[in-house]
């Protein structure tokens, strides 16, 4: 579904992505992990076309995304730090997004809006929201359009346990519908029951891309967090 071929990106001297090749298929739930500054967000932003790679190409449904914009209608994106126009209320924001996406009430997925009880605070302005509520809005927006691909950048950071559980349930539900889900996260224990594949990045390079079963047999650890910790130590030792 999404295929990245040798993409590289530098910000000045810093190499954020160093000829990364990744291919992701629908039906998978892929965790993108790595230390801070390892290029996860840059990769995600390249897929969305927010960052233009210096070299390499990204294919979405076998079509190059450079200068294309229509493919984004199939992606729901939840940014790491949701930044929205300060003066808008939640209700206006959601209405605007529906308007831009040309969505009707019938084919939009408002489950998260209900479950997070966002209707109660529809007239609150975005600038008055706490970080957690902002995350809820971001999540609700990402799922709103029933996209085929969901890209979630640190989805549960800042959410309270209840909201985080609601979101996780929703992610599992969407995964079962055969959607491709890309998640970056630092909280490894949260990913345990969600993901089917794992991508580990470091210093802009792709280190590991394996399914969870492979990973478990490789590291002989049942718990994901331990397996990944082992992996990190291994890759640090190799250098």
């Amino acid at each position, binding site marked *: 579904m999404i295929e990245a071929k040798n993409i590289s990106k530098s910000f000045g001297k810093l190499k954020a992505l160093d000829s990364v090749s990744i291919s992701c298929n629908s039906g998978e739930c892929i965790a993108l992990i790595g230390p801070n500054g390892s290029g996860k967000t840059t990769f995600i932003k390249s897929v969305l076309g927010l960052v*233009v790679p210096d070299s390499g190409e990204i294919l979405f449904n076998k079509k190059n995304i450079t200068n294309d914009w229509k493919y984004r209608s199939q992606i729901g994106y939840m940014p790491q730090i949701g930044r929205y126009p300060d003066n808008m209320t939640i209700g206006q924001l959601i209405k605007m*997004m529906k308007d*831009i996406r040309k969505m009707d009430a019938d084919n939009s997925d408002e489950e998260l809006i209900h479950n997070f009880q966002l209707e109660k605070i529809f007239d609150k302005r975005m600038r008055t929201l706490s970080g957690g509520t902002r995350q809820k809005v971001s999540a609700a927006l990402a799922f709103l359009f029933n996209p085929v691909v969901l890209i979630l950048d640190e989805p549960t950071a800042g959410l309270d346990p209840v909201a985080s559980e609601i979101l996780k349930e929703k992610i599992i539900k969407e995964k079962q519908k055969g959607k491709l889900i890309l998640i970056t996260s630092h909280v490894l224990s949260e990913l345990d029951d969600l993901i089917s594949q794992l991508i580990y990045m470091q210093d802009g390079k792709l280190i590991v891309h394996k399914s969870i079963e492979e990973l478990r047999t490789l590291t002989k650890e049942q718990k994901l967090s331990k397996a990944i910790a082992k992996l990190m130590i291994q890759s640090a030792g190799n250098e």
Partner: protein
Amino acid sequence: MNKVIKYVIIDILRNKIVVAYTIFLFIISFSVFSLEDNTAKGLLSLLNLILFIVPLVSIIFSTIYIYNSSEFIELLLSQPLKRKQIWLSLFSGLSVSMAFAYLIGTGIPLLIFEPSELGIIMVIIGCLLSIIFVAIAMLAAVSTRDKAKGIGVAILLWLYFALIFDGLVLFLLFQFEDYPLEKVMMLISAFNPIDLSRILILMQLDVSALMGYTGAVFKDFFGTGIGFIVALLTLLLWVYIPLLLSLRKFKRKDL
């Protein structure tokens, strides 16, 4: 396309600065005309005020607005929208708001006190000037990532067009006073939209008779229909070129 423009304009209107700017222009225009018993004198004072205030407010407000809507731009960019469409919508939204503020704030008093061809020309040029500085502001904002730096660049650009450019021209004039510079001056004036607007309006006033030989040469050109159209086209180029450059930069920008 129209949808994004709609949201940009709603957002700008919610921002009370534009409303304050409109009221400010309105009060200034009315008081200038009420202070002077002679409309021509009032027009001249108003002209000088407008040529300072309109570009200043346009460029600074637009620059700050672009920086402050970086969230909005980011949000839109992750949606199925073209970058070009987003950028042009921002430009249109800003231009419409700034031109509309001028139209209400200065246009109405102008047309009440000077309901002539001159009044209409002044309204058109004020609107054009607003739009030109929106375009320049967008170029300044897209060129620098840092907000403080971007606003600094915008202020410097305004200073350059409003003051420094004239200083440089005067300096040139004194250095080469032995040479006939009238034709060259006409060309030079095309490099500054504020000067060009000033000349265009002055040429419609009787005071142009007091400006000596240069004034006569200017009047010969800008006073005619062709000269007027060429000058207007030059002003339109001042919208088009900065906008095009900023669009090219925006298309390649990482967010």
